[in-house]
């Protein structure tokens, strides 16, 4: 496919990797680079990129898997919506997340109406086609995804659709990155920044964070050429002693981002403090519906109450999300916790670090 195949050119990847390894040799110390986004984690695993580099490059995965960072209390709201007779529309990624021995998938087996949608717009179409039912969208995702839901809410408003509501569990990436770097314990040498979050928010929101923490960062596309080139750009910054935000994914990411999408997101949502699995509560890192759109708030309309749930015993998902532990360090990984029997969300989501490691066959 055009604009994909060209970026999977093995010879070109090999050429760039050669330079990466030269730079790694020149640096001569261990270099730790975090890929923030789960889609990058999956791409690195799928294309086997990890094995191409000199041993002194350590690629660690960050908090960029939306399903993984959503705490159990968030999922409990979605479960309640289904259990109280509403039709839940969700992305497929959430279906098998375990919560106290159940999942949306098992709830569906118990007869509750839970439907997997490819797009939030599908939920709007279903709500129009079945006006006698009350629909609830599970709103999970980062800045890439929340503008889509904002546009669906605005469309509901315009068309007078009143049987579709939202549980907003959206999270914002820059505050989480800031929190992670502030903690300082990971000693990250460079950041591979999420390409599609950046497509929406642009390059600017990272500048202050990078300046404050002095970490080279590169906005990156999702194909092998993009990823190895981004690693080369980060290493180059380290060798030249520069610390700045660069953009490798110039074919898609504009410096100012998608201004219209950000405007829609801000029209419908306001930032609120939010809890992240593994990172705790982060100021201004979530999104809630604004007063004018309260009508669409499923939590308020149906009196849903978040139920605090502990982490599954032995599960390291929280540490894996913050990059402080790797899946292979977990006693459950591959033995008890597998994609067909996931203990925590990091093994469920197609973007979860544990799932990425599992499918790449990484054993130690």
């Amino acid at each position: 496919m055009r604009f994909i195949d060209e970026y999977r050119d093995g010879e070109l990847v090999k050429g760039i990797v050669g330079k990466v390894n030269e730079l790694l040799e020149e640096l001569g110390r261990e270099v730790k680079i975090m890929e923030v986004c789960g889609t990058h984690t999956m791409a690195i695993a799928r294309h086997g990129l990890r094995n191409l580099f000199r041993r002194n490059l350590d690629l660690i995965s960050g908090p960029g898997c939306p399903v993984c960072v959503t705490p159990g209390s968030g999922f409990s709201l979605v479960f309640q919506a289904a259990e109280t007779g509403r039709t839940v529309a969700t992305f497929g990624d959430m279906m098998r997340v375990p919560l106290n021995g159940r999942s949306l998938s098992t709830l569906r087996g118990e007869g509750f109406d839970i439907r997997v949608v490819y797009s939030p717009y599908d939920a709007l179409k279903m709500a129009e086609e079945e006006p006698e039912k009350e629909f609830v969208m599970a709103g999970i995702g980062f800045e890439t995804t929340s503008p889509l839901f904002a546009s669906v809410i605005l469309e509901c408003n315009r068309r007078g659709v009143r049987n579709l509501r939202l549980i907003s569990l959206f999270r914002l990436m820059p505050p989480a990155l800031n929190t992670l770097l502030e903690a300082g314990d990971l000693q990250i040498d460079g950041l591979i920044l999420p390409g599609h979050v950046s497509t929406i928010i642009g390059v600017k929101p990272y500048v202050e964070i990078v300046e404050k923490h002095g970490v080279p960062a590169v906005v990156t596309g999702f194909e092998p050429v993009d990823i190895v080139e981004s690693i080369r750009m980060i290493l180059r910054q380290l060798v030249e002693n520069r610390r700045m935000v660069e953009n490798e994914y110039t074919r898609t990411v504009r410096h100012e981002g998608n201004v219209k999408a950000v405007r829609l997101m801000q029209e419908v949502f306001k930032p609120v403090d939010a809890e992240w699995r593994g990172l705790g509560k982060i100021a201004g890192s979530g999104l809630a519906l604004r007063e004018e759109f309260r009508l669409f708030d499923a939590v308020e309309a149906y009196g849903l109450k978040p139920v605090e749930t502990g982490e599954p015993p032995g599960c390291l998902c929280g540490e894996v999300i913050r990059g402080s532990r790797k899946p292979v360090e977990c006693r459950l990984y591959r033995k008890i916790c597998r994609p067909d029997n996931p203990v925590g969300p990091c093994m469920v989501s197609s973007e979860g670090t544990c799932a990425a490691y599992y499918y790449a066959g990484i054993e130690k």
Partner: protein
Amino acid sequence: MCLGIPGRIEEVRGTEATVSFGGTRRSVRLDLLDNVSVGDYVIVHAGFAIEVLDQETALQMLNTLREVFRE
């Protein structure tokens, strides 16, 4: 979940477009973009086009990389 796939716009109908992904056609929402035309490549995430791909920049970057790193 932040998956975005580039596809070519084949037809625009108001706020919707038919987009071809290597021959597979899908209906895609255009709410987040202004001024898209047939022949544009857009990045599609969960049924919405989130940005127009800059074809010229894409080719320039590829050519530069090929010149420097491909034997």
